[in-house]
C-alpha cells in the first residue's frame, strides 16, 4: 500500500501511581506490579475501597509542574502540564505554531470544584476552560479541542487526531488525557454496584466489578517524518460506533464494538491474523467483559492474544484509552507482551485468548478498544508496519434541514413549528414540544434536561427529513456543548453532599456525562454509526470543526448522513441547533 500521510507516534508520557514516565509505568507493568491498593479516605468514600492513585509528591522534580502549581492551576491541570512537558521535552516541536493542535480527553475535568460550591458552577469547572489553561501554559495559539465521550474519550481522541492530521488540517497533535479520583465519580460507580471489593479480575470467572484509578497521559502524534525516529509506530486506523442499546448497560450482542474494530482494521488494512495483540477495555464488570468477548468473536479475533491493563491501573476513565495505548506502544518497542493481571480462569461466553504471561513477543500491529456509558465504542490500530490510507476523496455536501430550539420555541429551517412561549418553564415547554411531535416515549421523562433538548431537536429534524433510507451504521452523530453535563453534575453533587443517609443515585449519575445525549438519540433512532461528543466554548466555536469533520466522514464513506450540531443546557439557560447534512447527489 502506498500513501503519503503517515501519523507517527513521536513522544509520550504517563503519570500514574506506578510512575511519572512511560518507561517507569511500563517497567512496573512488565514486572507485574499493580498500582491498585486499599484506599481508606473518608473524603472520597465512606468505606475503604481498592484503587490506584497518583502520588503528587513524586512530581516535585518537574519544573513545569512547579510552575503550574505556582500559577494556581488546579491539580488535574498541574498533572496535565507535568505530563505534556515531559513528553514535549523530547521533541523539537514548536507548540506555538499554527499547524499544532492540543486535543484533550477527559470525562470530568475539574469536577472536584463543585464540592462546596453550593449548587453554583465555578467557571474553572468547565472543560473548555481547563483545556485552554493547560494549552496556553505552553503558549498554544490554536484553540484546543476537548473530547468528552465517557470512557472511550482517550481512544476517540486518537481517532480524531489521526483524521485531522491525515486530512492535512494540522501537522502535529498533542493529545492529553486525564481524570482524577474524586468522590463525585467513586460514589457514582458505587451506586451502580460496579466497584469490586477486591482488585479487578478482567475476563475471569470470578470477576465482580472494576477498580477505580487515576492517571494522566500525553501522546504526541505528527505527520512530520523527520520526528518519527528510527523504528516508528503509527496510528494506522480508527473508528467509533454506538450500541444503540442502553445508556449504561453494554450491548448484549457486542455488535457496536465489533463495528469499531472492523472499521479500524479495514482502514489499517489489517486482517484478523495480523493483529498481534488486542488491548481491550476489560473493566472486569460482568457485562462489559462478556460483551467484549462477543465482539472479539464477531471480528474473528478469538485467537489473538487479549490483554486488559485494568489490573495494573484500575479504570482511569478519560485517560484510560490513551494511557493504555501508550503502554502498548512501549511494549511494541520492547518486544514484550504484557499479562492480564489477576486473570485466572476464563469467564466470558465467547472463547478469547487472554494473555496469561509476560513474555517476549513481536508486536507489530495492536488493536486498542474502549467502550463506555452512552453505548459508545472506539477502536484504533497502531502498527510498526506501514499501514493505512490517505484521505484524498473530496465530496460536496449539503445541509438538508436544521432544527433550532431556544427561547421556548422550536424552529425547523427558520419556521416556528412549536411555539411554547406560553409554557410555564423549560420543563413544561420541552415536554409539550416533544409531545407535539412524538408518541409517548417511556424514556423521555427520565432523561436530564440536556438529553431532552437534544432528543427533541433530533425528533423534529428526522420527522420529515428522515434517515429511513440509511442502514443502522450509516448515520454519524457529532454533537458539541459548552457546559458538558454540569447541570446534572450539580444535582449529583447535591445528592452526595447529604452524608446521612448517603444515597448517590444511579439514575442521576448516569447523566453526568456529556455524551449521554448521543446515547439517547442513538437508542431512539437505532443509530450505530460514528459518534463524537465535543466540549467547546460555545456554538460558534464548534460549527466550523464539526462541518469539516462531517465532510471528512462523508467523503471517506464512513457515513451517508451526519447529524451535527450543538445542544447545551445549564440551570435554565439552553440552546440547541442540529443540522442534517449529506452528500450532494
Amino acid at each position, binding site marked *: 500500500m502506498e500513501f503519503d500521510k503517515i501519523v507517527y507516534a513521536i513522544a509520550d508520557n504517563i503519570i500514574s501511581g506506578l510512575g511519572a514516565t512511560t518507561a517507569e509505568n511500563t517497567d512496573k507493568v512488565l514486572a507485574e506490579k499493580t498500582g491498585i491498593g486499599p484506599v481508606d479516605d473518608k473524603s472520597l468514600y465512606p468505606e475503604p475501597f481498592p484503587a490506584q492513585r497518583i502520588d503528587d509528591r513524586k512530581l516535585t522534580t518537574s519544573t513545569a509542574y512547579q510552575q503550574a502549581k505556582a500559577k494556581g492551576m488546579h491539580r488535574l491541570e498541574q498533572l496535565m502540564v507535568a505530563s505534556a512537558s515531559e513528553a514535549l521535552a523530547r521533541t523539537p516541536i514548536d507548540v506555538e505554531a499554527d499547524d499544532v493542535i492540543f486535543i484533550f480527553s477527559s470525562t470530568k475535568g475539574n469536577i472536584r470544584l463543585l464540592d462546596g460550591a453550593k449548587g453554583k458552577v465555578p467557571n474553572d469547572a468547565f472543560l473548555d476552560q481547563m483545556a485552554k489553561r493547560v494549552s496556553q501554559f505552553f503558549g498554544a495559539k490554536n484553540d484546543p479541542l476537548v473530547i468528552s465521550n465517557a470512557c472511550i474519550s482517550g481512544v476517540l481522541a486518537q481517532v480524531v487526531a489521526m483524521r485531522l492530521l491525515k486530512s492535512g488540517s494540522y501537522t502535529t497533535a498533542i493529545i492529553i488525557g486525564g481524570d482524577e479520583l474524586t468522590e463525585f465519580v467513586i460514589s457514582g460507580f458505587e451506586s451502580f*454496584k460496579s466497584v469490586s471489593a477486591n482488585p479487578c479480575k478482567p475476563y475471569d470467572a470470578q470477576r465482580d466489578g472494576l477498580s477505580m484509578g487515576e492517571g494522566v497521559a500525553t501522546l504526541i502524534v505528527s505527520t512530520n517524518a523527520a520526528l518519527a525516529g528510527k523504528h516508528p509506530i503509527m496510528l494506522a486506523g480508527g473508528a467509533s460506533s454506538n450500541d444503540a442499546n*442502553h*445508556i*449504561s448497560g453494554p450491548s448484549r450482542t457486542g455488535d457496536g464494538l465489533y463495528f469499531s474494530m472492523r472499521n479500524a482494521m479495514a482502514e489499517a488494512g489489517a486482517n484478523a491474523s495480523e493483529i498481534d495483540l488486542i488491548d481491550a477495555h476489560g473493566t472486569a464488570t460482568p457485562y462489559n467483559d462478556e460483551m467484549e468477548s462477543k465482539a472479539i468473536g464477531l471480528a474473528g479475533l478469538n485467537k489473538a492474544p487479549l490483554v486488559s491493563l485494568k489490573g495494573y491501573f484500575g479504570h482511569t476513565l478519560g485517560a484510560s484509552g490513551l494511557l493504555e495505548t501508550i503502554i502498548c506502544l512501549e511494549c511494541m518497542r520492547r518486544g514484550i507482551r504484557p499479562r492480564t493481571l489477576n486473570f485466572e480462569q476464563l469467564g466470558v461466553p465467547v472463547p478469547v485468548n487472554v494473555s496469561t504471561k509476560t513474555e517476549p513477543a513481536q508486536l507489530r500491529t495492536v488493536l486498542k478498544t474502549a467502550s463506555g456509558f452512552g453505548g459508545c465504542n472506539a477502536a484504533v490500530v497502531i502498527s510498526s508496519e506501514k499501514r493505512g490510507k490517505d484521505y484524498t476523496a473530496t465530496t460536496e455536501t449539503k445541509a438538508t434541514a436544521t432544527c433550532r430550539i431556544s427561547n421556548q420555541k422550536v424552529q425547523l429551517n427558520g419556521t416556528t413549528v412549536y411555539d411554547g412561549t406560553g409554557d410555564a418553564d423549560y420543563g413544561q415547554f420541552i415536554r409539550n414540544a416533544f409531545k407535539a411531535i412524538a408518541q409517548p416515549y*417511556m424514556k423521555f*421523562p*427520565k432523561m436530564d434536561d440536556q438529553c431532552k433538548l437534544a432528543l427533541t431537536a433530533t425528533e423534529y429534524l428526522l420527522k420529515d427529513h428522515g434517515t429511513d433510507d440509511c442502514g443502522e451504521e450509516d448515520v454519524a452523530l457529532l454533537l458539541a456543548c459548552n457546559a458538558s453535563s454540569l447541570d446534572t453534575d450539580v444535582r449529583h453533587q447535591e445528592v452526595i453532599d447529604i452524608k446521612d443517609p448517603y*444515597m448517590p443515585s*444511579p*439514575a442521576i449519575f448516569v447523566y453526568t456525562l456529556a455524551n449521554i445525549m448521543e446515547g439517547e438519540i442513538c437508542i431512539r433512532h437505532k443509530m450505530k454509526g460514528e459518534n463524537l461528543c465535543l466540549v467547546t466554548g460555545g456554538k460558534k466555536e464548534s460549527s466550523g470543526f464539526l462541518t469539516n469533520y462531517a465532510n471528512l466522514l462523508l467523503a471517506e464513506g464512513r457515513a451517508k448522513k451526519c447529524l451535527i450540531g450543538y445542544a447545551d443546557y445549564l440551570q435554565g439557560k439552553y440552546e440547541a441547533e442540529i443540522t442534517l447534512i449529506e452528500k450532494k447527489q
Partner: protein
Amino acid sequence: MDNLVEQLKQQIIDELNLEETTPADIDPAAPLFGDKGLGLDSIDALEITMLLEKYYNIKISDPKQAKEIYASVNSIAEFIKANKN
C-alpha cells in the same frame, strides 16, 4: 397487603420518575422489567434497591436475589412483609 401494594406503586412512580404513569396503570401481578409490563431497566432496578433501603430499611446486595424479588409489585410487597424490621 393492599395498602402496601398501593404505597409501593406510588413510590415506584415517584422514585423512578414515571411521569406519565398512574398507580391504576400498574398491574401488581405484571412483570416490571422487559418489554412487557412497565418496561423498566437495570438503572430502575438499582433505584428500586435504593427505595427499599430508604422506605423499608431493607438491604439487597445480591443482584440475582434482586431479579427474583423485583419480578412484580406483588413479589416486592411479599418480600417486604417477610423481611420488615
